[in-house]
């Protein structure tokens, strides 16, 4: 009797274990997320992480994953701290990670040298090191749909189309004084010479993010014709409030795509009316795939969003865009390698073969969501077009068509920067593209 009971118990326990055992790395598609749901930049980190995770969950729920394999998306919290980001990378890479989306330029810079060694690509979608766009020099790095440099060139192009052109004007550049904020400065300096404008720079330290009165006093003193902001997190709302305080015309104040979220402008409200920001992903929920996210994930209680209304906001949709690109990379990798259970190397090939045309965006349920993205062996930044949106006091309104970058100027600078990056690294892995 005792033996029967014991055997039965063991059998039951074994059955339960088998049922509950997590799918092994080979049976899943592992896409770890380095999140910052806490810390000073959580306001941006939360919607991005939610959008990213919800889209991948939707694919699992609606399609059963990709190629018959479920996607797993373990999160590791970095608090936007580069050191913690590297720890998260080291802790998660061994589980068959296919790609890393660091969502921090600081973490991206740390992971770029690790990618060829561990054979896991890094996709810094529209951020990170601009030179990653040069595929020959950075085979394992991707930053489509655009780089910070191409974005800056598009913004300057917009300014050049207003008020009689940019020549002879003074451009104020206010930026978070970290790697991310400084990233577009070489391009801005170069273009100031070729386009004939002057630049006044206003670095904002992390400690001064919410104490910017000195910076805006200097703006008042310098009287720039236009202001451009490379801000992030709590810096953005404070900058816009301070700009309004000194009566700076907000329709001449343009933020980059990290300074144009609902999270940045909701606390500012009516005061921020007129402020302009770049964007690369569509706003709202009027896209069939986003409707599927609502249906299969949010309404079923599988999302971490607190409220249904958070879906469709700028940074949530940015996270969705990132997830769509990752999912498309997986599909391409599966197609190229001929197997469902892909590796990081396969994923790299998939990302390099990225080609999302307008027709493909429609097929994916995102018609008009963003510009086509096409990567090649040489160009890991894709198309590079952005659009501008303006705050009307309560929401964003799109005010421009897609603005392509000044590729003729940006590309040679990217090539030079890539050469410089690898110059002192004799063992750096490059690739030949023909």
């Amino acid at each position, binding site marked *: 009797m005792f033996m029967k009971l014991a055997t039965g118990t063991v059998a039951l326990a074994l059955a339960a274990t088998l049922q509950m055992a997590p799918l092994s790395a080979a049976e899943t598609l592992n896409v770890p997320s380095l999140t910052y*749901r*806490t*810390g*000073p*930049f*959580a*306001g941006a*980190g*939360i919607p991005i992480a939610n959008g990213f995770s919800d889209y991948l969950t939707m694919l699992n729920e609606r399609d059963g994953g990709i190629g018959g394999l479920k996607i797993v998306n373990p999160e590791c919290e970095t608090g936007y701290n580069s050191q913690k980001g590297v720890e998260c990378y080291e802790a998660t890479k061994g589980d068959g990670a296919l790609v890393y989306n660091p969502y921090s330029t600081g973490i991206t810079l740390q992971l770029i040298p690790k990618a060829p060694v561990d054979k896991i690509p890094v996709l810094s979608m529209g951020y990170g090191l601009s030179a990653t766009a040069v595929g020959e020099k950075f085979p394992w790095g991707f930053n489509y749909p655009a780089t910070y440099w191409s974005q800056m060139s598009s913004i300057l192009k917009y300014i050049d189309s207003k008020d009689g052109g940019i020549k002879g004007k003074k451009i104020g550049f206010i930026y978070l*004084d970290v790697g991310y904020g400084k990233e577009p400065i070489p391009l801005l300096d170069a273009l100031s010479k070729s386009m004939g404008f002057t630049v006044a*720079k*206003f*670095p*904002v*330290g*992390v*400690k*001064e*993010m*919410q*104490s*910017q*009165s*000195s*910076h805006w*006093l*200097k703006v*008042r*003193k310098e009287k720039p014709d236009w202001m451009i902001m490379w801000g992030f*997190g*709590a810096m953005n*709302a*404070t900058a816009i*409030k301070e700009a309004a*305080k*000194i*009566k700076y015309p907000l329709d001449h104040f343009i933020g980059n795509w990290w300074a144009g979220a609902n*999270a*940045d402008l*909701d*606390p*500012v*409200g009516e005061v921020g009316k007129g402020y302009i920001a770049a964007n690369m992903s569509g706003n709202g929920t009027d896209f069939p795939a986003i409707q599927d996210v609502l249906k299969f994930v949010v309404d079923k209680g599988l999302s971490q969003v*607190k409220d249904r209304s958070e879906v469709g906001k700028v940074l949530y949709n940015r996270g969705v865009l990132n997830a769509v690109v990752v999912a498309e990379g997986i599909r391409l990798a599966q197609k190229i390698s001929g197997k469902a259970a892909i590796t990081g190397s396969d994923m790299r090939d998939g990302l390099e073969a990225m080609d999302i045309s307008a027709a493909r965006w429609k097929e994916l349920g995102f018609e008009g969501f963003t510009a086509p993205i096409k990567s090649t062996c040489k160009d890991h930044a894709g198309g590079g077009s952005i659009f501008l949106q303006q705050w009307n006091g309560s929401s964003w309104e799109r005010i421009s068509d897609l603005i392509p970058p000044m590729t003729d100027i940006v590309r040679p600078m990217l090539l030079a920067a890539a050469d410089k990056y690898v110059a002192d690294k004799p063992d750096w892995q490059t690739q030949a593209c023909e």
Partner: protein
Amino acid sequence: MDLLYQIFIAPFIDMVSTPDFLLQVLWEGFVTGTLYSLIALGFVLIFKASGVFNFAQGIMVVFSALTLVGLYQAGVPAYLALILTIGVMALLAISVERLVLRHMVNQSELILFMVTIGLSYFLIGLGQFIFGGETKSMITEQLGLPTGSTEFEPFGGILILQHIDIAAVVIAGILVAGLAFFFSKTRIGRALRAVADDHQAALSVGISLNQIWAIVWFAAGIVALATGIMWGARSDVSFALQIVALKALPVLILGGFTSIPGAIVGGLIIGFGEKLFEVYWGGLLGGGVEGWFAYVIALIFLMFRPQGLFGDKIIERV
């Protein structure tokens, strides 16, 4: 030669040629300095009572502001939310005393400091768990605080005074004066000074250490709430606000960790100093000098008065 001109001549020409702008810089320095004084006061109160630098003061600013906004967002009327937030800060003070400090009597200052670091991380986690990490807007108008601005035209130029800044100066001034009076002229204030001198001696003359600690932590909580409201109204309420509180460190070095007048004067010196230097000399160093300039001022003072401007003279008997 040009550099000497840029350092010693050009800024002063700037000041004289655009006096309206100089007035604006001085006003901003005054407002910022007043708010620094308020933050520093929170540190001074706890340091006086327990000899510990309260690392959690910054997160107390965020936590109190988040509680206020969170309660309002949950449907509680603004003034009731304010009263409830004061209640939450009182509860926090009593909890800190009962659960933490009571067990730390006569421990070294370093241990008490470590305790406040632990408390800081606990409050960060608790705040994020309850209110989430999203940036929130301060309920300025709902609390009856003024918005908008008034413009003057001194010297043919323009001087813009934000009404919220005027309110911040007035409220901070009243709070600082009230607390200074309370702690210097009342029985509790004298008891506080006794506790600051020696825990054991204070206990032996019948002063309740636990009561004093709860009172100063509550007072520091009120100061944190006032700072959170004012600073939150100027920018917004986010966890990044706790970093602003660290700006009080040079104020404390300058004014002395134990002096309420020191916190006031130190705050104003740092406020005026960093604005003037950033605006008129910052460009020579590429800008962004505000972050460290306050520490330079503090260091210079430290060389001549290690105890700060108004700090108690350090006498060590062998």
